[in-house]
């Protein structure tokens, strides 16, 4: 029987079968489960790196040392890893290296929907794109051959609908892979200008050889059908096209960089009208048009968001695609955005920040949810690690007084990913920024991965736990205070003091994520006789505190017993459910 695997699990399986012995990643939706799955194979050394750049660098080292390597990250992670990637393209590999880039059209869980196919073209490395879990597994294996044959890192691109769809996969046995011999070779691996110039020529020769390879690649195949309409597509859109317009002629591209020019030219010449069906940017379309061929793409298809079989049917065939549906609801339907969990240690901090009317340069993690109503306690959020530099920039632009009403907020994982250098700048350039590190002992947003601050590796082995307090001190910050974010009075006192201080300070708010702490606390209840209906407790934005008609009540199935609301209530109306 086949196994039902998500795209991510299939990639992990492919790496395993290909004899990979080293895997590194930094978590990021929708790529996280790749290394989580790989880590279960004892044959493979797996790690969470502190960020994507380091992940790739560890991968590069392992490749130069002769191992087959898997490196995985989300699309924006490749921005962080871009520096080593571009030069690694010059050096090439020893053991094969495959870099997974998981994109997120529609931004289910991302800050942008950049199209990472351009990275492959920009860095001049081949890129494969699977359409199902089976292909994901098979392509990863093929990618190692490609990598070693052409002496290049190979990128495999997925999107959310591939990474997180489960489809049947045939598994095979692992092929053990001997380490390649390690020979010191500075002209290949030491990229000083003199050697880099030589390698650039090699890269150009490789690019041309890969163009031929793409034309011969079994991953690029034509499924002839009706020749009135031809469709060029790849990835998940191939499946949508099969569903929406299965009778058309389809050129399914699996190797999307470099594109198979001959195959595409031949295909275009055989059909009356050609559409390019690709999500996001006109990556294929623009190249095909540059060869003087006529195709239709972004004139009819959107450049934003995900596609669907309906959208393709509508644009291609002018059908709505939707079948006769049950009558849709006419009432407006309230949205249901995600919220900080009941008992989340981040909540109290935002409550106090709002009380003190502070501005917040934010960062990326669960705590970004504090940007949404009712907390709405965030002024900016750009990318991982940006909070601290942004705060310093605001202070430098508008002066110290402005800086005293401003804090930078960053999570523990994010601080170690790319916050440390921002803080270094604050110290070096004499800022007075107040930075709050929300140390919830995990990388919560992406599903609770360990990081250098938790004291555990990806395999849950004990390891050195970063001493945040002393790390921050060593950077030159003199004012460092640790606080329990459940203690609202203390948090308020510290925030008042630190924001006005004439030097930089760091507040470490330390308490584990509510989903990690499995101890059960009794739920809270509101004494309706004492409650004046002032709604102060509702400013916490806790999903367990709800308005039931006129009464404010606490939903006992949701309450986690954190007791923040007890601290907030001025009329002593809230207590443990049993007592009130």
């Amino acid at each position: 029987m086949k196994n039902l695997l998500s795209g991510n699990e299939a990639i992990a399986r492919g790496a395993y079968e290909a004899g990979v012995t080293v895997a590194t990643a930094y978590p990021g939706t929708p790529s996280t489960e790749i290394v989580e799955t790989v880590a279960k194979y004892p044959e493979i050394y797996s790690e969470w790196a502190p960020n994507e750049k380091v992940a790739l660098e560890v991968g590069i080292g392992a490749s130069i040392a002769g191992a087959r390597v898997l490196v995985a990250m989300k699309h924006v992670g490749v921005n962080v890893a871009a520096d080593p990637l571009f030069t690694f393209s010059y050096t090439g590999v020893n053991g094969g290296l495959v870099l997974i880039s998981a994109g997120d059209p529609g931004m289910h869980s991302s800050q942008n929907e950049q199209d990472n196919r351009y990275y492959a073209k920009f860095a001049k490395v081949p890129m494969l794109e699977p359409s199902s879990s089976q292909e994901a597994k098979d392509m990863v294996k093929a990618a190692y051959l490609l990598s070693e044959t052409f002496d290049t890192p190979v990128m495999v691109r997925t999107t959310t609908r591939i990474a997180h769809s489960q489809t049947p996969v045939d598994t095979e046995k692992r092929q053990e892979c001997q380490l390649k011999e390690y020979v010191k070779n500075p002209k290949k691996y030491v990229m000083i200008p003199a050697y880099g110039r030589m390698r650039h020529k090699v890269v150009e020769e490789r690019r041309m050889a890969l163009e031929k390879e793409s034309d011969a690649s079994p991953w690029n195949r034509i499924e002839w059908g009706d020749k009135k309409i031809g469709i060029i597509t790849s990835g998940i859109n191939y499946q949508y096209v099969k569903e929406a317009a299965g009778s058309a002629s389809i050129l399914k591209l699996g190797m999307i960089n470099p594109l198979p020019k001959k195959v595409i030219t031949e295909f275009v010449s055989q059909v009356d009208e050609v559409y390019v069906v690709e999500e996001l940017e006109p990556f294929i379309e623009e190249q095909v048009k540059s060869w003087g061929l006529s195709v239709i793409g972004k004139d009819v298809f959107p450049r934003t968001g995900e596609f669907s079989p309906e959208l393709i049917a509508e644009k291609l065939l002018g059908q709505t695609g939707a079948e006769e549906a049950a009558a849709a609801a006419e009432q407006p339907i309230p949205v249901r955005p995600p919220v900080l969990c009941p008992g989340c240690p981040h909540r109290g901090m935002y409550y106090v920040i709002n009380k003190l009317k502070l501005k917040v340069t934010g960062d990326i993690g669960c705590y970004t949810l504090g940007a949404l109503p009712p907390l709405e306690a965030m002024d900016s959020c750009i990318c991982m690690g940006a909070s601290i530099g942004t705060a310093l920039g605001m202070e430098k632009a508008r002066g110290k007084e402005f800086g005293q009403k401003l804090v930078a907020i960053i999570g523990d994982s994010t601080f170690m990913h790319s916050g440390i250098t921002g803080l270094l700048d604050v110290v070096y350039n004499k800022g007075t920024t107040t930075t709050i590190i929300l140390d919830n002992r995990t990388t919560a947003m992406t599903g609770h991965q360990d990081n250098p601050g938790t004291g555990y590796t990806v395999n849950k082995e004990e390891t050195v736990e970063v001493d945040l307090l002393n790390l921050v001190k060593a950077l030159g910050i003199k004012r460092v205070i640790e606080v329990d974010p459940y203690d609202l009075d203390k948090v308020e006192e510290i925030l008042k003091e630190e924001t006005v201080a004439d030097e930089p300070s760091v507040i470490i708010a330390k308490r584990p994520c509510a989903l990690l702490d499995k101890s059960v606390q009794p739920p809270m209840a509101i004494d309706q006789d004492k409650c004046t209906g002032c709604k102060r407790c509702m400013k916490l934005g806790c999903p367990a505190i709800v308005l039931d008609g006129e009464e404010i009540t606490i939903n006992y199935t949701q309450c986690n017993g954190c007791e923040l609301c007890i601290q907030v209530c001025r009329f002593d109306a809230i207590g443990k459910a049993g007592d009130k």
Partner: protein
Amino acid sequence: MIKPVDILIVGVGGQGTVLASKILAQVGLEIGVDVKVSEIHGMAQRGGSVVTQVRFGQKVHSPIIKKGGADIILAFEKLEALRWLDYLSGDGQIIVNDQQIDPMPVIMGAVQYPQGILDTINNSAANTLVIDALTLAKEAGNIKTANVVLLAILARQLDVPKEVWLKALENIVPAKFFEVNRKAFELGYK
């Protein structure tokens, strides 16, 4: 083989929709149909809307279901049932758990939780089944098994032997929770 069927499982993060869809997909594999499952996680535990799409058929291409294409919608919460109603096919069936979970805009009083959802659904869907899964789950001994109760209701609608469901359940839930989940399944299947 059962005929092709498209099932949408919708609910609120934390309600256990993912486990239910896992078991359902496993059943599909057991009975030898092509299966595709698409789910959006990431925010799954933070109380947002969650949806899993499960498709069974001879050959399934797209992992996502078209509007008006779902044969069955299994809704773990009323508002979510309403939200996805236009995915139900003209002659489809919707199974609704009679539970209300207020989303943040309702909690804040910015908007109202829609009134009479069950009537609206009843009036527009060809076939509506309303279940109080929490009560049955309590009866089984653990309120968290409401997802398995709901899965059992769905199981009743599909032409697959009960043993296949129980086997998939046993394969997927941790051994120490199997008994209470089996009980929940039986209560829902009755």
